[in-house]
C-alpha cells in the first residue's frame, strides 16, 4: 500500500508489520465472494460437510456412486462453502476519548489507529471492511471497502473526525445492530464508559443478530493509576461536570473500582460470546492487533 505513508492512523511501519497477521471469525460469515472464512452455506470447497438424499432435480453427477454401491441409495455429498467476511469497525467518537495523560496519543487517536490497522488487515486478506463512528448514536458511516485503493479515502476521512459530545454505547450498538443486514465481524473500539449492564445489552443485540463481536477497550494508563496528587478538581470531558477530590486519599478505592469495572465488563462479554480486549494507549499497535489476530 504505497499511499499508506500519508496516513496519520496507519503509518507504513505499522502497515508493514500487520500485513502478516490474519483475522478470522468464530461464527460462519456470509460474504459476497469466495473467501477464507466459513460460510453457513454449502459450496464447492474441499471440506466435506454432509450427505443427503438425492432429490429429483439434483444433477446426477453429484451422486456419490460408491455410497450407492454400498447402500443402494442415491446420496449426494455436500461440501462446506468458504466465503469472505464483511467487517464493521465501530469507533467511539465521544468526548471522553479525547483524553491523554500518560500515553503517547489520545484514546481517540489510538482507537482510530486500531480501526485503521484492522481494516487494512481485513482488506489485505480479501475481506470487506466498513467503518462507523458513534457517540450517542452512529454519527458517521463509511460503506464497506475491499481494496486498499478504496480504503484510502476512508483513512483520510478518519483524520478529520474530532471526538466530541456525550456518548451512549448501548444505544449506538442497538442502532448498529439494526443497520447491519449480513452476518458481520463487528469490532467495537471504545473506552466503554457506561454501566456494564447497559453495555451488555448492546452486545447481546449484536450477538443475537449472529454477528461476531469483538470489543477493544481503550484505556489511558492514568485512568487506572490516577497519578495526580493532592487536591484536584476533575472536569468530566463529556458532561463538563466538576468534582473536587483528594487524589491521594481516593486512589486505592478508585483503582479498586476501575478494576472491578473492567472485570465485570470482561465477564459480561465472555457471557455474551464476544471477544474483549483491554488495550492501553501506550501499547504498540501491532501488539494490540495481534491479540485479536492470533485467536484462531
Amino acid at each position: 500500500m504505497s499511499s499508506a505513508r500519508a496516513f496519520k492512523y496507519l503509518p507504513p511501519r505499522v502497515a508493514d508489520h500487520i500485513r502478516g497477521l490474519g483475522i478470522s471469525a468464530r461464527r460462519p460469515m456470509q460474504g459476497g465472494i469466495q473467501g477464507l472464512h466459513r460460510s453457513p452455506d454449502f459450496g464447492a470447497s474441499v471440506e466435506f460437510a454432509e450427505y443427503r438424499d438425492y432429490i429429483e432435480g439434483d444433477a446426477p453427477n453429484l451422486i456419490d456412486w460408491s455410497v450407492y454401491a454400498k447402500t443402494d441409495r442415491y446420496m449426494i455429498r455436500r461440501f462446506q462453502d468458504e466465503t469472505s467476511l464483511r467487517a464493521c469497525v465501530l469507533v467511539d467518537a465521544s468526548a471522553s476519548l479525547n483524553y491523554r495523560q500518560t500515553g503517547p496519543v489520545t484514546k481517540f487517536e489510538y482507537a482510530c489507529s486500531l480501526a485503521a490497522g484492522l481494516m487494512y488487515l481485513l482488506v489485505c486478506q480479501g475481506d470487506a471492511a466498513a467503518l462507523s463512528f458513534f457517540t450517542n448514536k452512529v454519527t458517521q458511516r463509511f460503506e464497506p471497502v475491499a481494496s486498499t485503493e478504496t480504503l484510502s479515502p476512508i483513512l483520510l476521512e478518519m483524520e478529520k473526525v474530532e471526538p466530541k459530545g456525550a456518548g451512549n454505547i448501548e444505544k449506538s450498538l442497538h442502532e448498529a445492530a439494526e443497520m447491519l443486514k449480513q452476518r458481520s465481524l463487528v469490532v467495537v473500539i471504545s473506552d466503554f464508559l457506561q454501566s456494564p449492564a447497559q453495555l451488555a445489552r448492546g452486545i447481546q443485540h449484536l450477538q443475537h443478530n449472529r454477528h461476531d463481536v469483538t470489543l477493544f477497550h481503550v484505556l489511558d494508563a492514568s485512568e487506572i493509576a490516577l497519578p495526580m496528587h493532592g487536591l484536584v478538581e476533575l472536569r468530566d470531558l463529556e458532561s463538563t461536570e466538576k468534582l473536587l477530590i483528594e487524589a491521594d486519599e481516593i486512589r486505592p478505592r478508585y483503582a479498586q473500582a476501575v478494576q472491578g469495572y473492567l472485570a465485570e465488563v470482561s465477564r459480561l462479554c465472555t457471557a455474551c460470546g464476544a471477544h474483549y480486549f483491554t488495550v492501553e494507549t501506550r501499547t504498540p499497535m501491532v501488539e494490540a492487533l495481534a491479540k485479536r489476530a492470533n485467536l484462531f
Partner: protein
Amino acid sequence: MPFFLSHPAAAWLLPAVALPILFHLFFRLRRTVQDFPSLMFFLRIDPRLSAKRKVHEWLILILRCLFITLLVLALARPLLGLKGAGGNVARLVLIDNSGSMAASTPAGLAKLSLAERATEKLIAAEHKGDALAVQLMIPDPTSTLPHGFDATSSVLRDSVNKSTPSDGGTPVPKAIRLALTTLGTAITAQRELHIITDLQQKNWSRGDLGAEAQTPNVRIIIHRIETAPVTTGSVSIEPVETPTRAIPAGRIVPVRVALQNHGPATAHVRLNTSDDSGKNLSRTVEVAPNASSLITLTFSFGNPGFHWGQTWVEGDVAPTANRADLGFWCTDAQKVLFVGTKNDFAALPYAIAPGGNADLSGIDAVFTPADQLMASLAANPLAIALTWDNWPQDGAASQALQDYVKKGGTLFLVPTPDTGLTISRPTAAWLGASAGAIQTPKDAEPLLLLQDGDAIWHDLRNGEGRPTLGSLRIFQYRPLKTGTDWQVLATSAQGLPLLAQRNFEQGRIFTSGLVFSPKWSSLPLKAGFVVLVQNAIFGEQSGSVPVRLMKAAEEFHFDLTGEQATVKSLAGSALDWQGAARDFPGFPRTGVYEIKQRDHVNWVVTSGNADEAVPDFLPLAPVPLLHNLPHDVVALVHEDDLAQTEYAQRSGLSLYRWLLLVAFLVLLTETWLANERSSDLGRKLFRSLLTSLVSKKSTSGKARELTQV
C-alpha cells in the same frame, strides 16, 4: 488573679488572626483543575473530602490562627498578677495642690506639706524594681516634677519638696484621667493610683470622669487629709465686676470685689490695693459670719497701655483665696465727631463729654460743619454723630461714612431738634434705616426698653437683670423705619421703634427717633443717660482688649497655639517660662503675666478662687465622682501612713516567654501537619492520631462503596 497587658497597643494586631483564614480560602482556590474522561468511578466511591481530611485542614487553620494570636499576645507583654511577694508595683501619687490644700490639718501642719512628706516617705520605702511617679492635680509650670516612671528617687524627692499650693480649684476628673494614662505606660502588672487630697467638696463635685476612665488594672486609693475646723472668720476675695473694655487714660475705673466670710465668726481684715504706678491703699473691712461684702475699689492710670493692680486680704486666718490681681487696658483720650452745631444734638455731646472736654470721660466732643465731614474723617474719631437732616447727599461723603463704619467706627444718627421738616431727607441705601415724620401724642407715652441682655444696658440693669432708667416718658418722636438687620432697643407704647442699633461689618450704627432733649423725652434727665451713651460709644470692646482676666488654674489657651511662647510674671507669683505654647501647663496662682508670641503681646491676670476657701469636705467614704471606678478612701493623718500600708498584690509572672514558646511549638506542629503528606512517617503518625477522630460513619460508608464496586 488579674491579667494585664503591658503593651495593649499590640492588640491592634489581633485582626491579623484573620489572615490564615484568607490564605486558607485563597489556596483552596488554587487547586489543580484537570480534564478526565469520566467521573463515574469517583461518583461510585463518593470522592468528597473525607472527614479526616477536613479535620486535618481545620486543624492546620486553627493552628495558624492560634500561632498569630499567641504571637500578638506575646507582643502585648501580658503579665499575670499573683499574690505574694516577688513582683513589682507601679505607683502614681497624685497630689492635690489646689488652694484648699494650703489650709492646715488639725495638727497645725499645712495639708500640702503633709502630702509632700507622706510622698517622700513612700519614695524612700520604694522596693527595688518598683516604679513610682508623682503628679500634681493642677499642672504647675514652676514644678520640677518629672513625667512618667523614669525618674530616680532622689530627683522625685527633691521635686516633691519644692511643690507649693496653687490658688485655683482642681479639675479633678481631668487630673485623674491624666494619671490613669500615665499609669497605663507602666510595664508592671500591679498598678496603684494614690490620690492625696482633702476631698474639698467643691472640687470633687465638678465634672465627670466618663466611661473611658474604666481601668480594671489600676487600684485607686484616696488618702484623705483632715482639715482643721474653722472657728474664726475666714475671708476670701474675688473680683465681681472688672472692666472688659479699653479705658481712656486718666479716667477713674471702679472695680468691685466681693469679700466673703466662710467662718462662723466676724472677720476683721485689712484690704490692701496697689497698682503698677506705686499707689497703695489699705482699709479695714469687717465681714459678718457666712456673709459677703461688696467693696468698690478705684483705679486710675494716666498713660495709655497695659496697667495692673493688686488687691489682697491681710489678717485672715485662712491662707486661701486671699489675693486678686487686676489688669486694665488704657487708651489715649478719644474724640467724637459731631457733624453740625452743638444745638443740633441737644444733650448728646454733654453725655459723651461731660464738662465739655475729655477730663472726665476721656472723650472730647468735636464739632464740624457738614461740608467738612470728609476732611474730619481723616482724624479717625472714636464715633461720629450725625442728624438725619444732615445726612450727606454727596455720594463720596456717604461712601466715606460707609468705609468708616466698616473699619470699626461707630455712627450715631439722631433727629434735629426744633426742625420744621415733616419729611425726612433721604439716606444711603446701605444704611437700611430712616426716620419718619414727627409724631406728637396727646399724652406722654412710656418708652419701653428691649434687648435685656445687650451690652448697651451695662450698669443699667436692676436685680432682675432688666434695664431700668426710671420712669421714661416720650413727648414727641420720629419713628424709625429699620430693616431686618437692625436690633430695636426701645419702642413707644405703640411699638414704634425709637432706638435701634446695627452691626455693620466691624463697626456699629445707632439710630434714634428721639432728640436727646427734655422737650422730646425724659431720657436726658435720667442719671443713667450718660451711662447709656457711654455704653453706646464704647460698645462691647473686650475682644480688642489684649488683657484676659481669669481665675487661677482655669484652662488657658494661647492665641497662637502652634507657636513658641514666653510667659513672664509682672506681679504676683514669679514665673518665667518659655516653650511651645501647647506645652504650657497653665496659671496655677494669682499674678500678672505678660505673654509674648512672635510680635504679639498680651496679658493674663489671675485671681484666686473663692470656692477654695469654702470649708466643706467630703467624708471618709467612697467618692461620688468615682462611682464608676472601684476605689478606697483612707485617712492620711501621719506622714508614715502612706508608706507603711502595703496595698499591692505584687505581680509574679510575665507570660511573654511562655507565650513565645507555645507559639513556637504551635508553629512546629503546623509545619509538620501542613507537610505531612510528603512524609510517610508524618502521615502514619498523623493517621494514628486521627484514628479516633474519624467517625464510624465514614468507615461504614467506605465499606458500602467497596461493596458497590
